[in-house]
């Protein structure tokens, strides 16, 4: 409901005295993407269950890229384009969030709840750390030469709650 109101207000200036114009958000996928990109990960995943359009838009890499960047502390200002290609090669932002950033944020939130023992410097996830873990996971999934798949990749198990990994 809230989602529909947002673009509502944006369009108000054109409404004039005749009352508000209705603007179905589903007519404009890019605008929808902009809006969805401002969500947190969990809400975005939920939004992807609304309808097919939202599911498709919600899977866009650009949307997840915005979500990721919003939730990590970007240490060094690396070239955004370079990051994009590397992340795409490793599996994409959506996967990055699902495997690394999301669980890390959950873990840190849990730690924060338990007590202020963790120093403040350690409380946010840095992009470089998330990418390091992501790259290790991607490497583990590459498998052997002859297709000999060894034990399932587990380097990110320490982050996961006991729910299905893949």
């Amino acid at each position, binding site marked *: 409901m809230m989602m529909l109101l947002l673009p509502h207000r944006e369009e108000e200036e054109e409404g004039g005295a005749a009352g508000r114009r209705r603007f179905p958000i589903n007519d404009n996928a890019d605008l929808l993407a902009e809006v969805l990109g401002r969500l947190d990960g969990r809400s975005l995943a939920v939004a992807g269950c609304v309808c097919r359009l939202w599911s498709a838009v919600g899977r866009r890499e650009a949307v997840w890229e915005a979500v990721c960047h919003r939730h990590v502390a970007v240490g060094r200002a690396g070239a955004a384009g370079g990051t994009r290609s590397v992340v795409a090669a490793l599996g994409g932002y959506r996967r990055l969030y699902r495997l690394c950033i999301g669980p890390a944020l959950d873990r840190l939130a849990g730690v924060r709840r338990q007590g202020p023992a963790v120093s403040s410097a350690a409380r946010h996830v840095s992009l470089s750390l998330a990418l390091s873990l992501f790259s290790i996971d991607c490497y583990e999934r590459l498998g052997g030469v002859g297709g000999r798949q060894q034990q399932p990749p587990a380097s990110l198990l*320490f982050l996961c709650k006991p729910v299905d990994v893949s």
Partner: protein
Amino acid sequence: MKRQHEDAGREGDCPVAMGLETGKGKMVPMMTTGDGECGVDELLAALGYKVRASDMADVAHKLEQLDVAMSSDDASHFPQFASDTVHYDPSDLSTWLDSMLCEVNSPLPTLLPSPTATAHCSNGHSLSISSNSTVTKDSTAAPPSASGVYDFEPVPSPAAASVGRVVYETDPQSEKILSPRDSKRIRTCSSSSSSGGPTKEVASFLKQATAALPVVVVDTQETGIRLVHALLACGEAVQQENLNAADALVKQISVLAAFQRGPMRKVAGYFAEALARRIYRHNPLPQADRVALDFLHSHFYESAPYLKFAHFTANQAILEAFAGCHRVHVVDFGLKQGMQWPALLQALALRPGGPPSFRLTGIGPPQTDNSDELQEVGWKLTMLSENIGIDFHFRGFLASSLADIEPQMLLEPEGKKGERDGGDEAVAVNSVMELHQLLARPGAVEKVLGTARALRPRIMTVVEEEANHNGRTFLERFTESLHYYSSMFDSLDNGANGEAEEEIEEQRRHREMADAYLGRQICNVVASEGMDRTERHETLGRWRERMAQAGFEPVHLGSNAFKQANMLLALYASGDGFRVEEAEGCLTLGWHTRPLIATSAWRIGAAAAIR
């Protein structure tokens, strides 16, 4: 914590009279003025009892035990209670209970064979002892007097006099605080400081790591204490070649270990097995093939943060050293599964200025079967690099010992030099827990360091276990490794139980494999000798000396590495137990106060560069 005891100490001085007046069982509202009341349970405080909220479970437990003890004691003890109760101030409930339990337990006869050291164990938890001084330091100390061993009358034996005691670091303030206390309590409940050795108790269940606690928790699980005593006695018996006694003790250890739970049980089990191997000469440990060893190693990688910490900090140092270089070459002394390198590749791909062309030389042991692990790893890394856009080359070397490698093998292949643009390549040498294995052969480590220096690396990263398992005598090594692996197992165990939810099957399997990995190390340290004993860990100080002798000078690891390590640890469920510390430019990761693994970085010293 300290203030709590200071308050109690002050009370111990004056209000004995108060206790006398009120007698047993009456509650006196004694609100102290101590401002360190944080964590004191308010409801009990209103009644006049000071109990820290974190101690509640422990106090309840002790109350139960006291109840049982008093109800089951025969009449001969009652007069003692009746006359002695008034001496103690019951408002500090925890320590009062300790003293009461001491009184209850002290008349018990001891069944222990010669207790050779004093130790403190908390209920069922592992032996989280932090020991800074080595055992040999105290070998000349006065033998433990009657006041030295709590809970038992020490069985006099010639062995006990000569053996070093397990000592702990302490806070000197705590000694002063203890003295105004009832002398009877000190005699029965705390280790004496007759040898000048300090005392400390690490209550692992309180998860307090920094301040030294002035003791005194009576371990109600006698098997725990006996187990530690038996282990140390067995080690000492083996040292003296008294194999009959050692044999008997090993059997006893196995029995006692069955009563324990958790990490203590595992540690005792592995050490008992290792001791048995040594006694019965089931040497050497059947040489597991490389696949199995790698398997265990990778599970250890996944279940504990130590190796990830090592890789991340080393990578950060290498990344910083490679800043601005267009051709880089990394020599990895122990490639194993190559888990260190994806993160470095990714970081190089994203660095400002674009990625360099990257060459990796991986060294690994020869394979028993026909599989070529090194090439597989190289292939995977090549695929990853292609995906992320790095020009990557890989070369693998099979060598049963690092000392067999000559520098010429590792340098750039002839003819190619100068053809590529970008000038000379920058070299980094990386060694994660490989160097200590060379110490078995004299001269090997010097040769390897010489080889490393001959490559003219910009940086050499060295990660080693922070322990002294290469002492001259068996007993030194035994006691040191007992502490080290106790802390290690403790940290692994807490890692699993950090989450409230149940551990998933995968994680449990990883942990079991990780335990087996450590168990093999324990076996090697305890049961092997000579060339077979490859797990010759040495402390950071000793490695610093060796590197300096080889012509290297230290490079400080910097704050980025420190921050990243902290962030990594924050992600682990039991992050508050792990500690990253910086020591003269090197980073160590430890469990509470005990550093367990150390990363350091080196470059060729100015003096050596001239040569």
